[in-house]
């Protein structure tokens, strides 16, 4: 027993850091969603069912869902293109590195990338204006839900590539050879061998993309400076002006809502990937 305590001591700095800066904030959110000034109250939770909050949740689900589907399909195609190129080529490494940057470290920069492309004075906007006479940036759609869908796709596809390439690499050449030597055509091989093996990985990745878009904040915040069409931006509004909706502490309830949605999706993701892991090792 004494030895066990002594062996635990070196872990304390790590445990302290994680407790203070991860566990405490999370518990604070969950606790404060139900307790206002130390008194149990469902006021903040019921505020989640106000029209504003429900509209934001619905738009967030719409945004995450649509970009997860688009990202998963197009990302799977791009992943296939990458996997069928030679594994040691510099081009391949460069593409993967670019995907990694765009998928995970882009944030604010991606908003400005699209402002520079299809914003009011964007490069593509001006070209199209000159050549075709259309106004590409008309009515400011880039700042609406449609615009967010386009911009989010720009980081969802690369994320799909990063998650899906290992699954594609797990498909063994021997399985294809076995199928072909038994007389399968390419379509048959795809439909009877590859697709069933890859389906859990594909669905799991789509779920991951959904959670990723649902929790993303930086890109939307940089693009949409006013108004709060989606859940993360409503949290910003609730945080920066305590009186929004006449409800202090509303941010806690919204944050709890976000935890719940992301957690449910991630659990489903883990179940699916565990199924994949059995085969694609």
């Amino acid at each position: 027993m004494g030895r066990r305590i002594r062996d635990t001591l070196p872990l304390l700095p790590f445990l302290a850091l994680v407790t203070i800066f991860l566990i405490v904030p999370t518990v604070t959110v969950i606790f404060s969603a139900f307790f206002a000034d130390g008194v149990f109250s469902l006021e903040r939770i019921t505020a989640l069912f106000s029209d504003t909050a429900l509209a934001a949740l619905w738009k967030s689900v719409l945004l995450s869902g649509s970009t997860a589907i688009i990202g998963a399909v197009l990302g799977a195609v791009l992943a296939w293109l990458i996997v069928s190129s030679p594994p040691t080529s510099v081009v391949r490494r460069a593409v993967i590195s670019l995907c990694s940057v765009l998928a995970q470290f882009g944030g604010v920069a991606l908003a400005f990338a699209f402002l520079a492309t299809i914003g009011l004075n964007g490069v593509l906007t001006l070209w199209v204006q000159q050549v075709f006479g259309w106004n590409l940036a008309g009515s400011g759609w880039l700042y609406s839900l449609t615009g967010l869908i386009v911009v989010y796709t720009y980081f969802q596809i690369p994320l799909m590539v990063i998650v899906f390439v290992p699954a594609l690499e797990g498909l063994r050449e021997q399985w294809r050879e076995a199928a072909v030597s038994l007389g399968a055509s390419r379509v048959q091989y795809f439909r009877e061998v590859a697709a069933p093996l890859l389906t859990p990985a594909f669905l799991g990745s789509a779920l991951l993309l959904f959670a990723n878009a649902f929790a993303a904040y930086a890109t939307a915040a940089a693009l949409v400076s006013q108004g709060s069409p989606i859940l993360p931006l409503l949290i910003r509004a609730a945080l920066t002006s305590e009186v929004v909706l006449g409800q202090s502490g509303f941010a806690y309830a919204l944050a709890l809502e976000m935890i719940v949605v992301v957690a449910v999706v991630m659990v489903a993701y883990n179940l699916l990937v565990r199924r994949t892991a059995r085969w694609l090792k």
Partner: protein
Amino acid sequence: MNRTSLGGKLLRGVLWVAFGLFFLFPLYAMADFSTRNLLKGGRTLQAWKNLVQDDALYQAIVISLLLAVFTVVLMLVILVPTMIWVRLRAPWAKGVIEFLCLLPLTIPALVIVVGLRNVYLWVAYFLGESALTLTFVYVVLVLPFAYRALDGALSAIDLKTLSEAARSLGAGWFATIARVVVPNIWSGILSAAFISIAVVLGEYTIASLSGFQTLQVQIVLIGKADGPTSVAASLAVLVFGFVLLLVLALLTRGRRRTGAIDAAVPAPTTATQSGVPT
């Protein structure tokens, strides 16, 4: 893939071009936009010069770079000994440590910042109100990436034999870790460090909602008045991150999967920990 027909090749070519345009055109547009002279027409490098000349922006860049350095140092100082210790002396804690390290993937940064207010009242009370205090919460943010990178490197060596050899020759724990183990897992440490730098330089959520003027916060602020400068700074960060990860990928050449990618994939624990990386 040598049986590919002409049609297949054509399809593949068209797809590469389409994806290439979609991903590279916005980057090209950023370069074009940031060098455009809005007043007189033609080209100017003023937006790029602003990265150093604009005081607020330059300060923010310095702060973000310092934050990146501090985060990497604190992350390594805390995580490397912890992970080694868990493998050698406290294997029963491995599950807990792994769970905690991967937890930030499930708890969004936005949620952390909502619950962080009280914690930062205390941090400000003890350490003052510096943007550099963000280091602590940034270490938490980079944990999943760093854990994956280090875990892969540690699985690839025979840690027990190495440390027992060092200890039986009279080395203390500090010497064992610093002079025997660390040189053997440098690729993992490099991956963890590079990815952490990229995360910190790109972080906006926590900094902006805590009211600290880091690089990304400043970029958004400037963007309201001076688009080209913001676009230049954004492109600079993206290119820097890309170069960082590409160098990493080329350095770890020969391994089938690079640390950057392994570390980046939030796969569940069971899929990643068993087996030695090939």
